[in-house]
């Protein structure tokens, strides 16, 4: 049984993860009780500074972390990534980036999660990801 996603619970998980803390991730509740992950605009996320776009690896890490944190915060179980695919839809300028995960299926052993990322405009996606996670209790 999965619970409603809590921003406090996600932030607690982030606080215990030095890499996610270094990325600056945080969860915040938006209107309609929707919890989203936020990747802040930090210069250390830049790929090549001239165009001023965020590195693709950082965006992919953000997408995967959003999916993993969603599973861990709602199901309170471990979530080991089996595979994760990221589509970079457009260059991501240095500005706050938001992501939200949707669990497509949560079975006894595997969960499939889709993640969407955007910046100022929720309808203008900058990247999407989909991954499969092992959620076995025996991890």
């Amino acid at each position, binding site marked *: 049984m999965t619970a409603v996603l809590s921003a406090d619970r996600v932030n607690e998980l982030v606080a215990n*993860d*030095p*890499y*996610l*803390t*270094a*990325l600056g991730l945080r969860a915040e509740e938006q209107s309609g009780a929707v919890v989203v992950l936020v990747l802040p605009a930090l*210069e*250390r*996320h*830049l*790929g*090549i*500074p*001239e165009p001023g*776009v*965020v*590195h*693709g*690896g*950082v965006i*992919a*890490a*953000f997408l*995967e*972390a959003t999916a*993993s944190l969603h599973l861990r915060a709602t199901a309170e179980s471990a979530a*080991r*990534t*089996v*595979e*994760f*695919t*990221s*589509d*970079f839809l457009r*260059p991501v300028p240095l500005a706050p980036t938001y992501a939200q995960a949707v669990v497509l299926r949560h079975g006894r052993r595997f969960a499939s999660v889709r993640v969407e990322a955007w910046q100022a405009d929720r309808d203008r996606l900058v990247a999407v990801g989909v991954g499969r996670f092992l959620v076995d209790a025996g991890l």
Partner: protein
Amino acid sequence: MIFAMTDRGHPVRLPEGSSLDLDMIRDVAMVSNWAHRTLGTRLLGLEANGAVLGIDLVGTASSDATEWPNGVVTSLIDHACAIAALMTLDDRARFGGSVGLRVEYIRPSRAHMPLHVRAECHHCTASVALVHAEVFHPDEPAIVVAVGRGTIAVNGVSIGTA
């Protein structure tokens, strides 16, 4: 001057026939990319269609971490795929950004061992470069920790002409 050394202490060299500037590649791999400058990524080798990158230690892992953070593995794969595509293109101006990345985690990595990635561009058209990457620990190069597939945009040709 940016300096890159292989694990055996030899300077990284351009493969025969490459017309790229070695300092430019070192800069793209280790300096201009702020995310990888922060991670401490090193350029360890170059081939006609490939590149080897590595990170010695993860500064953002807790002392009791047993594995490398997935985000570091992912980021290293993405970057190595881009450098491999650059080697194949042999032209900085045609080198675009990543448009897709897939990572499969094969087995747990070991947090306190250096992490290397070997990427090879296996197919390149006028619009995309397709790259395969393998992540491993240098002490156990045959044991693959993760594999990745990167898709890199190629500049300079209109859509539909690939």
